[in-house]
């Protein structure tokens, strides 16, 4: 077998060196009735590299790839152009096949990357500090709520209706088991976000308010206003960013008073990959550092006085604190953080600003054209690169009909909010620097056909 270096002669000689007669003698502690006599039944035997590649390629060919169709999906995962050098660099074996940097003397590469990543994320989000990444945006969102509860010693979180429903569901799942109270509301199909509703829900029991920016319908809440209201009640503002490219154009949440800012970093450096792995961004005020979840990398010196980096403040973490840890997280999303960091380094602040401007301009072109399709209205007054269309009928059926025409036309609110009435005519449309005029025209034409009931 191509991945197993021991030869049959090695195995015989090694068994002899150990003093065992057979390999099964080494499994003597496994009770006989639990030992399988041969390979697990019902599964095929080994296969060559060529055969496996063919099998996987056949499965891959059964998917309609984003690059092969006019493509307008977003809702928490965005298709941006990734510079070729990003994927090349993350495949260097020294990055790809290293472990968590427990031995810092021989892991300075990973550690310096994490230190640079933390600095980039903090500066992007406008926070004092940031950690070395979380699993994804949705789990980072829950961890922020749990952290706010530790800081305020209160148990209630107020969620804006503009929070991505998967994030909201993740939070509700966790809260059901931890006993935290979640005051959530569904979105309303209004041009403006629900800032006033959120502010009205804050009281003396509130640990934090969770507001997505831009929100799931593409609208932009007034974070400064909500932050002031939260602060007046001793609550924290948790801002959630699912499209970090937006922060090249609109103000960083930390600069608007958010106490904790979390986000999904997938847009930079990490492809769509059908939903994972992605990476969670997590930044906050420096005074909360000892309540933060996840890995942290810090600067220090070595025995010769040279600058170096180590994982630090591990007294918050599970391997030291066990049941008293701030979180059970062990793994972060290291390789995705590296990809994010490289892409961000190639862009720099100026490149990110330009990229954001281009996204926004492309979205304006799409909104103008799609708003001209008979029966279709654009909900938003303001948006970054994603907006909501209101169709005359069920958007979920329209998305399927568009797919039958080879157009990936967006994400229906019916898909995102199954069972939630009153939202089914909503269609989220995301546009990036990748979206060409021909694709916008193709969607507009196909949407017109679908709405007029033309057969595919």
């Amino acid at each position: 077998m191509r991945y197993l270096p021991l030869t049959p002669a090695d195995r015989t000689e090694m068994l002899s060196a150990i003093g065992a007669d057979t390999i099964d003698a080494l499994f003597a502690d496994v009770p006989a009735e639990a030992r399988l006599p041969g390979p697990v039944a019902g599964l095929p035997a080994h296969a060559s590299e060529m055969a496996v590649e063919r099998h996987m390629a056949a499965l891959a060919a059964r998917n309609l790839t984003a690059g092969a169709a006019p493509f307008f999906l977003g809702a928490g995962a965005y298709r941006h152009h990734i510079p070729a050098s990003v994927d090349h660099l993350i495949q260097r074996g020294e990055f790809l096949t290293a472990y968590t940097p427990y031995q810092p003397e021989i892991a300075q590469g990973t550690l310096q990357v994490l230190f640079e990543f933390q600095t980039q994320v903090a500066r992007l989000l406008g926070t004092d500090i940031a950690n070395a990444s979380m699993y994804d945006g949705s789990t980072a969102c829950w961890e922020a709520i749990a952290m706010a509860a530790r800081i305020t010693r209160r148990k209630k979180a107020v969620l804006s209706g503009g929070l991505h429903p998967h994030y909201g569901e993740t939070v509700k799942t966790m809260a059901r088991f931890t006993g935290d109270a979640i005051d959530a509301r569904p979105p309303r199909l209004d041009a403006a976000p629900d800032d006033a509703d959120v502010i009205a829900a804050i009281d003396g029991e509130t640990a934090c308010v969770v507001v997505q920016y831009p929100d799931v319908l593409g609208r932009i809440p007034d974070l400064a206003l909500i932050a002031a209201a939260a602060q007046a009640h001793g609550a924290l503002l948790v801002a959630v960013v699912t499209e970090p490219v937006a922060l090249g154009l609109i103000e960083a949440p930390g600069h608007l008073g958010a106490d904790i800012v979390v986000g999904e970093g997938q847009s930079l450096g990490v492809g769509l990959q059908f939903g994972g792995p992605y990476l969670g961004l997590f930044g906050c005020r420096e005074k909360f550092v000892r309540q933060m979840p996840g890995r942290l990398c810090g600067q220090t010196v070595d025995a010769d006085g040279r600058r170096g980096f180590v994982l630090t403040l591990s007294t918050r973490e599970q391997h030291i604190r066990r049941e008293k840890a701030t979180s059970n997280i062990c793994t972060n999303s290291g390789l995705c953080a590296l990809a994010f960091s490289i892409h961000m380094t190639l862009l720099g602040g100026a490149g990110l600003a330009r990229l954001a401007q281009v996204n926004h301009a492309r979205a304006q072109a799409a909104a103008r054209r799609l708003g001209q399709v008979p029966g279709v209205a654009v909900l938003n007054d303001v948006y970054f690169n994603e907006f909501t269309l209101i169709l005359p009928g069920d958007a979920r059926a329209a998305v399927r009909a568009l797919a039958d025409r080879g157009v990936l036309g967006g994400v229906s609110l019916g898909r995102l909010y199954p069972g939630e009435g009153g939202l089914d005519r909503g269609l989220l449309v995301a546009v990036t620097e990748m979206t060409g005029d021909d694709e916008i025209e193709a969607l507009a034409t196909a949407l017109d056909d679908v709405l007029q009931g033309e057969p595919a």
Partner: protein
Amino acid sequence: MSALNPSGWRPEAGTGESAAALAPTASGDHALALEEPLIFELAAPGDKCGVDLDAPESPPLPGLARFLRAAIAPLPGLTEPEAVRHYTRLSRQNYAIDLGPFPLGSCTMKHNPRLNEKVARLAGFADVHPLQPQQTVQGALGVINELAFWLVTLTGMHGVAMTPKAGAHGELCGLLCIKAAIAARGEDRRVILVPESAHGTNPATAAFAGFAVESIPATAEGRVDLAALTARLGPDVAGVMITNPNTCGLFERDMKAISDAVHAAGGYVYCDGANFNAIVGKVRPGDLGIDAMHINLHKTFSTPHGGGGPGSGPVVLSQALSPFGPLPFTARTADGVVHLIEDTNADVFPQPGAFGRMAAFHGQMGMFTRALAYILSHGADGLRQVAEDAVLNANYVLRRLEDVLDAPFGHSGPCMHEALFSDAGLADGFSTLDIAKGLIDEGFHPMTVYFPLVVHGSMLVEPTETESRAGLDRFIASLRSLAERARAGDASLKSAPHFAPRRRLDETQAARKPVLVWRETVAPA
């Protein structure tokens, strides 16, 4: 005299002083040992950019004016040649499994096959959106379903939750299933029993899920104390979390008896599957009465660790727990269509007991494609060989070193996939840490140190099945030499490593005054 060296010149014998001290360089670099500044020291924000972008075709919407960023984010940019060089130079400061053995016990650092990287990058997997209409992603859903089938069959379990994003997330998933199942019975059980040898994630997860954690002692031979565990069972105990093979590298012989006792008392058995590598294809956890077990795809099934993630932690479930798993999940109908079920009230496969979503989207797809390629490559026969070779390699290390390193459980029989040593017998003032740092100078990554906590100065060596015999012999020779030096009190070991990019780092200073981000005012040390 060789043809390549006609002068007959030969290097002079060393003087004992380091080359760096003898011949200081102006750059501070030493041939291939290259230092690298931070990106913030390489360029100023706004200076340059490594991505060419057209000018935007229109200005921002007027309504956006009040939201615009006051100043661009203060982030430096690098051109492509500079960026490639920066990250390539940094990569060379890392040890990696591609460079040599990385015998971290419990972490399973095995070779990462490059076929897996190739298939994960096929456009049909890498460039599909998680919310595409299901008719356009049948191949991607097929990967999830096919991997799920393998995991269920290999473990002899009933169902599997594919969405957890890492091992600890999988633990959480399993405990939430247990909590939901107990709630569905109308009971209130709040205690989870965890052996003292458990991974730190186990008690942390149980506490995070709202359970009270109680510790169960180990026997003198390093296994769960069945009598103590049975005595503690009762109507308040929701379940136990057991690692098998355990963190001492031993199979829990009484696993079935433990499961039976826990079930009889109305509890559930969670198994930490971090060490599944030792038994894959040889033992099915379902036959041992396990109710839930996470599988670290980045351990047993070779997906790369990437310097600390991403992981992936699917959880296999017993028949009793399967109805309570998270959303979404995949299911295949007789017509061959794979459905993604995102709703408890779905038209097909409604699952009213499902406890809900643990994360956005459907799991670590990029890890699923890699793990499936690995599993198909090995097949049922090859996976069995994986376990056998992993166990053989670990026992070889154990028996070849137990004369110079104390093996606290070496007398109780063979180990599984990892060999455990302690610091007993080292000279006064010498510790496990000194041996670990000495291994760095020898060109190896150290083993796991100071874990498990049940042994003083633990050294947990997991060679994995992807080390050759010659490679093992070199590692054993180095570890033997270090053990002898530590027993003899060789002072030079106390200051190791001497040849790494950095010497021992001051972790106390890092934690006392944390510097977590670069600031212009913080001068480089």
